[in-house]
């Protein structure tokens, strides 16, 4: 693919398990390389332990990923995954999907903070899941890869928990809701639960995410109001979990962006949307550090990198429970740099222009016509006496 700086197109290539000869089953490392004119973005998705997405931004066009596979597989060696040359790394950040919480919402509040401890069922630890082979679900043309898995228990006999990573060469939108606006600096992670059997009658779910930052931590979530809900009907907010350099809150180094909505059907209609809300971000306590859960974080960052976590809770009070459709999907963008900003579609702008412009033009033309008529038509004459 051509590199076109002015259109901000990147050349995107996918590579599975770079440099590995043979791997034990269930471990996959996907490397997506997006090369710009004078910098490169590396996206790494790994299923060893908890599914993790690592983003690394380098200011060189020849940076590459080096994996020391034997050390990497032990999950005990810092530096077993490196991006060479290390001095070219500008910024990096990782997103770890750690746990799936399920609770019995007997009072229909959809608020995990107010639900008693006893209603919480044992969480699904995503690091203990067995994942499908990424080779089969890789789509190099569309730049997507899917990971599906379960923990082998009876709940996952007929269903699975899946993640789909998409990388992009340019600006655009997905066709399906929530149609987030992405650009070449972002990747999209869609997670969904399909067919998993709930363990209680009134189950609701909550997803725990942890973000590991290089220099700065992703320590705040900005909720931005937007008047445009064309692409996600009835959602007027965008949430952004961002990290900024110290003392400069207006610059964003890395972000996770989403619209606070989840969908209860694979091809949703308006009524299948259900709002979701987040709690946090809070610093992750010592015993829960993601390096233990995720092989990729351990290999790249070391044993104790600081992390912040949020919980995404799906549904609100009064909405149908998970058992009604046995499907839940949520999409987010993870990227580096400034998050993309939505704008009006050309259709809306043109309708408003025509609708407001036409009466103005008619009024103007009519006014001109009336003035012209007044000056052209002579005023009625006063009778002059005949003499």
């Amino acid at each position, binding site marked *: 693919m051509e590199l076109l700086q002015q259109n901000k197109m990147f050349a995107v290539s996918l590579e599975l398990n770079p440099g590995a000869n043979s791997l034990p089953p269930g471990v996959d490392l996907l490397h997506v390389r997006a090369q710009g004119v004078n910098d490169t973005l590396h996206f790494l998705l790994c299923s060893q332990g908890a599914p993790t997405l690592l983003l690394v931004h380098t200011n060189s066009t020849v940076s590459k990923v080096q994996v020391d596979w034997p050390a990497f597989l032990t999950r005990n060696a810092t530096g077993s995954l490196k991006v060479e040359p290390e001095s070219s790394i500008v910024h990096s950040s990782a997103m770890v999907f750690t746990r799936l919480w399920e609770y019995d919402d007997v009072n229909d509040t959809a608020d995990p903070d107010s639900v008693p401890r006893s209603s919480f069922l044992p969480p699904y630890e995503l690091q203990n899941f067995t994942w499908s082979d990424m080779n089969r679900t890789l789509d190099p043309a569309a730049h997507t890869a899917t990971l599906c898995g379960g923990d082998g228990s009876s709940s996952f006999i007929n269903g699975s928990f899946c993640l789909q990573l998409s990388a992009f060469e340019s600006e655009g939108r997905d066709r399906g809701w929530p149609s987030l606006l992405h650009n070449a600096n972002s990747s999209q992670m869609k997670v969904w639960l399909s067919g998993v059997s709930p363990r209680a009658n009134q189950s609701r779910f909550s997803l725990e995410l942890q973000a590991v930052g290089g220099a700065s931590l992703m320590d705040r979530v900005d909720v931005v109001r937007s008047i445009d*809900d064309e692409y996600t*009907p*009835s959602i007027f907010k965008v949430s952004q979990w961002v990290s900024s350099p110290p003392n400069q809150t207006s610059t964003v180094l890395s972000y996770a962006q989403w619209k606070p909505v989840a969908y209860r059907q694979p091809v949703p209609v308006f*009524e299948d949307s259900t709002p979701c809300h987040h709690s946090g971000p809070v610093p992750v306590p010592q015993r829960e550090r993601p390096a233990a859960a995720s092989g990729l974080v351990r290999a790249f960052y070391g044993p104790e990198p600081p992390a912040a976590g949020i919980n995404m809770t799906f549904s609100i009070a009064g909405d149908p429970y998970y058992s009604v459709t046995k499907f839940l999907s949520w999409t987010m963008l993870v990227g580096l740099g400034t998050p993309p900003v939505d704008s009006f579609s050309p259709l809306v702008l043109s309708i408003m222009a025509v609708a*407001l412009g036409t009466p103005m033009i008619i*009024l103007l033309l009519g006014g001109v016509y*009336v003035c012209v008529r007044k000056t052209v038509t002579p005023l009625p004459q006063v009778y002059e006496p005949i003499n």
Partner: protein
Amino acid sequence: MADIEERQSLLGSEEDDDDIQRDRGPGRPLSAISDPSHLLHRIIVLIFMCFLGFGSYFCYDNPASLQTEVILDMRLTTASFMQLYAWYSWPNVVLCFLGGFLIDRVFGIRLGTIIFSVFVCIGQVIFASGALLNRFWLMEIGRFVFGIGGESLAVAQNTYAVNWFKGKELNLVFGLQLSMARLGSTVNMNIMGWVYSRITDLVGHTGYTTLGVSLMIAGITCLFSLICALVLGFLDKRAEKILNKEQGKTGEVIKLTDVKDFPFPLWLIFIICVGYYVAIFPFIGLGQVFFIEKFNFSPAEARAINSVVYIISAPASPLLGFMVDKTGKNIVWVLCAVVTTLIAHMMLAFTFWNPWIAMSLLGVSYSLLACALWPMVAFVVPEHQLGTAYGFMQSIQNLGLALISMAAGSILDTRGYLFLEVFFCACVCLALIAVVMLYLVDYVRAGDLNLSASARVKLQKEATPDSE
């Protein structure tokens, strides 16, 4: 007790033809409250007349006040939900022409009113039964039957008003009837949510049963209106016997062939009517969820703000009517109303400003337009075509409402609220284009649509030089 005595005196007067002349009027002095020509009796009749329409206006907006509940309990899309409004409007595309004819020639005012009230009651019962039995098609049939009665009942109500209050009091009575109608809508918006939650506590869970029971309770207001219709029928028949006057007629003559003679300004007025009202009623129908989602209102607050348009128009209509009567210049007022509505919709679409402001503007401009637009028809069309013109105007208004209700539902399902608001803005702009053209056409032709009140009075005096 007093009633029986009067009934005997009436019977007495009927049997004796020669004595009819003597017994006309209060031959034996009747008490003030039972004398049909006395003000106190007419006020009693006025009260029943006002409550006649209460039930139908209360139940008309039941879907809007329970929008979330209807959609969730009956598992609908927004497009299907708006069908409940479309089905109300469809029969009125035709009935607006037939209503006057049915009342004048076929049923008579008394029987006609009772029949239409019965339709309203039965329609609401079928609507509620559809919910109880979890059959949406039955709910749509219920709205259709309800629609047959609803609009024609308004015609009957107006005919009663003209019959009992012709003269200087008529405008006040029309104003009061309109206010009562708005009161019915307001009460509906604010109460039905509470009723639904009480029934939920009773039944134990939400669902179509809870919805059905709530709608049946709403139907009690229709029963109340039916009782008013029966009482009015009785009082009217009694007054006819005592005062020996004829049964009231609508006086409308509908001749469809007159349509080809309608002047160009009248078609512009039709366009204004359609373009304007389709941006009001479907918007109120879908308003509750809009305010909840965009402005983070609670459901109760959202219902309250949705009813602001009606709350404001109840006192504002008579006041603005008075103002338009005194100043004239109808086109200018229509222009003001349309521009204000456009501003209100743009505020709701493109800003997060407090929606109370926009909805209040909408309420005032809606009342202003009603007072200024409908009388204009009488200025452009000769009197013998007036019935046809009004019937046609109501008919295409209902056609527009039926079509746009369905379109609004689908737009919301696929494109969201911003696009829906932009669509409503475009409809109001269509009305704006028509007003601007009406102003220019009237100015160029030196017509009399935009005369001030004093100039119009002078014109009427000149038109009837032999009246002295």
